[in-house]
């Protein structure tokens, strides 16, 4: 008994970390070039989805438990909103990143990075949630079962 998908498994095992790495490249490239949290989130989710396609949904659920999904979604929103709340506490308007550091330009940088991390968190988990929801659907009742 040997596995018919051995090439797929070896190659995708090799690819998954690089996809994740590329996601983080896009993420941190986002504040001064094309890219950002949304694209990075989709790429990161694609890594998990590829893993699920090759190794099965159960293995993917072990690697990325469904219980993380709700936490991740909320954490993303809270990171984004929390940045705004922090600027409020520091005496600025909502999401006016300038107050985050002594130099407003640095403040803008910190603010963008924090907000984009929030977007990454939410988008990754939502994408995986959609995949899990469709993937774990029970097959519909067929004629013989009536």
């Amino acid at each position, binding site marked *: 008994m040997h596995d018919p998908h051995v090439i797929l498994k070896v190659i995708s095992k090799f690819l998954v970390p690089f996809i994740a790495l590329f996601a983080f490249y896009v993420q941190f490239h986002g504040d001064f070039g094309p890219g950002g949290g949304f694209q990075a989130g989709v790429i990161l989710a694609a890594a998990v989805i590829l893993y699920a396609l090759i190794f099965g949904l159960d293995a993917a659920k072990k690697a990325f438990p469904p219980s993380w999904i709700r936490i991740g*979604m909320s954490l993303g*929103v*809270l990171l984004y*909103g929390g940045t*705004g709340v922090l600027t409020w506490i520091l005496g600025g*308007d*909502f999401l006016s990143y300038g107050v985050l550091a002594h130099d407003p330009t640095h403040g803008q940088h910190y603010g963008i990075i924090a907000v984009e991390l929030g977007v990454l968190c939410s988008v990754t988990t939502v994408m995986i949630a959609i995949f899990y929801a469709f993937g774990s659907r029970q097959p519909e009742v067929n004629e013989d079962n009536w």
Partner: protein
Amino acid sequence: MNLMSIFSQWIIEQGPAFLIVLPLLMGAVTAVIPNKGMAWWITFFVTIICTYTAFSLFQHVYFDSFLLYTMGGWNPPHGISLIVDGLSAPILLLISVMAVLTVIYALPASISEIEPKKRAPFYAAFLICFAGLMGMVITGDAFNVFVFLEVSSISTYALVAMGAARDRRSLAAAYNYLIMGSIGATFFVIGLGFLFMETGTLNMAEMSDILSELDGGSRVSKVGYGFIIVGLGLKIAMFPLHTWLPRAYAYAPTKITIFLASTATKAAIYLLLRFTFTVFDPSFDYIAIMLKYLIMGVAIVGMAFASFQAIFQSDVRRVLAYSSVAQVGYILLGIGIATSSGLAAGYLHLLNHAVIKGCLFISVGAFWYRFGITRVNDFSGLFKTMPLTMGAFTLGGLSLIGVPFTAGFVSKVKLILAAAEQDMWWAVLVIVFSSVLAIVYIGRIILFAYFGTPPKINGSILVKNEAPLMMLFPMWTLGLMSIAIGVNAFGIGDSFVSASEIAASVLLGERG
């Protein structure tokens, strides 16, 4: 004391953003907290704080001037601006007050309606829906309106579907609403696309300036307006586009019906007003034609037709849902007349109808909570088994018909006067005819409740089974409120009327 004054100052400065951010973030927190009981308390306090904020903003707008808030310090037209003025402030206050009352009602109701596992997500979705409605009303950026419209709609679909724990038909209703609502949102955003093509901006104030410079713009902006009307019409449940509403209202969890009936369609009507009168201008010939023939036409037909349909419904929640479609007709009629008295009457009816329908749906919800049924025949003998609930229902019902000394009377008389001013006697006739139909469909329920015999349970007649206090409180608050508007107790009636007059003057550009 000092801290309090700093806080109230801060609320005025940052309030517009605070009203959206607080429920949105707390919605995210509520979704993850492990303790189920906490979810209700968080929701309750968030709605209370939002009501306080909305009230402060309302006061500021009334005694001072309108508020403009720029997100992240980016000035319009590049940044997103939030605007609180005489038009949006009353709606903000209305939404937050209704949210508080709904949450109070929801504590006993969710015990019977929502599975324990789903209660925290339920409150999370409720808070996000609340944030979306607030955002829709407060924002001054046209695309942002679409975003918040979707935020509130998507959470609403989920909330409607949660009725499945008691009635599986809510799944079909939610799906139907999802399809119709998505089509509406798509039409709306296509319309915005056309407007953006014409004006090159998404800021409402600048859009309005450019459109008036172009004297209404080319065919592109006409098509854009058409798409926006259809899109919003679906959300408003404007007569031929109302088919999603009766089912969604009848099968959603009762507390969601209360919240939707008194806020969601109202926020959409606010958007219709905002786009028709402040982004576009009724002086453009195509807007005038639209108002005169389309809006007024569907208003008249909707009022008569939906009231007529309400008479033949066997489920009380469907009766009230069809009646909501008819009441939207009254509001649209006021908008279609487009004079300052017509707009004020329509706006006043919008506020009053939210109060009345809230009261009616809470009493039906309380009945459903006790007996689990809502057919008209089941109301038999309800004055003996649930006298307080039925009392509030009667107050709401009389107000819906427009009996003197109730809220419905005040706004209907204003509407009739506004129509008569323009010599539209046929409109007066339809208003009266539709009110007569209201007597039939409300009277039918009240007759059953008053003269019927209470149901027998295990051979003995059920004597008394009153709703819990947590339900009676919001029910009677709204019931007494509608009377207070009608008899002008504590100046409540006058403040509603002056709020609607100020809103009308904002719409006609007489007040900044």
